């Protein structure tokens, strides 16, 4: 599903922020990406959803090297990937309903099917009353839920979520993770970045650790369920 081979990244003339990362996400798997702020979680995810081109290494998605895709093939592949951006990236001139409907519109879904799907999902994330609201009038947590709904509405094969629970309280965070779990049970490969160790503790999924742009597979121990090999908690 996702394979990174020796991926390094630097932003323009800046320092390297990802160092030779190897990563594999099997189809249907569920992984966390745990790391402190500034460690490179967002950068790594941007490489996976093709927002950044790695300066070194290869990114394979759905069995294909993304470097070899033409623009239309890239577009089609991106439709199979749902992304929750850390900064939401809602379109300010569209209301919540239209923001969530966007992926379906892009893939040419008929209006009628779309209406009920969007409404149902919005109810699930607790935003049934906000369909007509514009992002600027929504709280951070509400915007985050709109962003999540938009990422999952198209039942993507791969879900990439960058700190999807950073702006909501504990209870809502759990609820949103149940949503991801549900999606995963239906076959979606899920990859969630977070700096919240407590959250990772609650779900028995494998996790990667990233520190200063270096990736390692996390290990759960009896004493510390989310301790990392060398870097420590």
């Amino acid at each position: 599903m996702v394979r990174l081979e020796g991926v390094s990244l630097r932003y323009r003339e800046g320092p390297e922020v990802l160092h030779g990362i190897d990563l594999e996400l099997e189809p249907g798997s569920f992984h966390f990406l745990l790391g402190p702020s500034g460690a490179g979680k967002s950068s790594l995810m941007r490489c996976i959803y093709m927002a950044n081109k790695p300066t070194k290494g290869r990114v394979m998605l759905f069995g294909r090297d993304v470097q070899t895709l033409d623009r239309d093939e890239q577009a089609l592949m991106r439709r199979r990937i749902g992304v929750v951006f850390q900064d939401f990236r809602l379109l300010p001139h569209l209301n919540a309903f239209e923001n969530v409907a966007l992926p379906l519109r892009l893939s040419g879904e008929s209006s009628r099917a779309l209406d009920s799907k969007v409404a149902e999902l919005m109810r699930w994330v607790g935003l049934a009353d906000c369909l007509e609201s514009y992002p600027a009038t929504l709280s951070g947590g509400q915007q985050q839920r709109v962003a999540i709904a938009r990422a999952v509405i198209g039942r993507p094969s791969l879900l990439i979520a960058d700190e999807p629970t950073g702006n909501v309280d504990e209870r809502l965070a759990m609820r949103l993770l149940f949503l991801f779990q549900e999606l995963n049970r239906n076959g979606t490969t899920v990859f969630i970045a977070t700096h919240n160790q407590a959250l990772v503790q609650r779900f028995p999924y494998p996790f990667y650790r990233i520190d200063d742009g270096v990736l390692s597979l996390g290990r759960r121990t009896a004493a510390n369920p989310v301790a990392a090999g060398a870097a420590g908690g």
Partner: protein
Amino acid sequence: MTGNRPLQLPLGRERSVKFLPWLIGFMTFLATLSLAAALLVNALAERWDQGLDGRLTIQVPHVEPPDSVEDELRLDAILKVLTDTPGLREAEVLDDRGMANILAPWIDDPTLVAELRFPVLIAVTLDGGELSDRVLQDLSERLEEVAPGTYVDTHRRWLVGPIRLADSIELVAVVVLLMVMAAAVLAVIFVTQTSLTIHRSVIELLHLMGARDLYIAVQFQNYSLRAALFGALAGLFGAGLTITAISYALVTADDGFVQPFQLGLSAWLPVSALPLAFAAVAALTARITVLRHLARL
């Protein structure tokens, strides 16, 4: 896809894009006036041309020394040549008596007119359109044989100057039209590029969600089409008013020049097609600009 959905790109809200319809409107106004001018001058020149069609005049000098019998023989020979020439319908001889009638207001003595020995004029009416240059040449040569010094006048030389002027006015008008079109293309490119910059992050997001370049280009194209069509129709309306006002002013001025200044129905057709041309050019320009811009990303 579906009809009434909101644009994913909020085009037309930013200031630099808002003035596109105005710009296109003003340009269509200018282009319409130039096109109308070109068509008017063209129609005018054609009318002058047609006025001369179907007629020519033959001047036959008297023989030297004066010999009225010889004059008659030559005239008969000429009329025979004319009868044998295909494409001529009628020849009317304006002899000394006819000439005396015409000149009566100035010279009231017919014998004096005869003494002045004006060349005999033969007004020829053609059978239909004009004669080809070859037939004319042929006719001149045969007349020269039977009556040396005979001159066939198509009156066309009087028109060379005005027609050349009309042609250059037409050319200038067409050049102005093309330049205005080119300016419109540049304006659309500029506005589209500005808009692409303004909406860069929205476009990036749409891309990340799987929008194709064409999908994005079509939104710009449609916006451009609407804006240009709106502006161009307004421009056409303004130009139509201006043209009508000018013709009206000329009609009331009431001189011989009036009639040619009315734009015929056949001229209104290309003039009305102009806004459509502007809209099409604007839409296509926007589409190509966006596709080229995105392909470079």
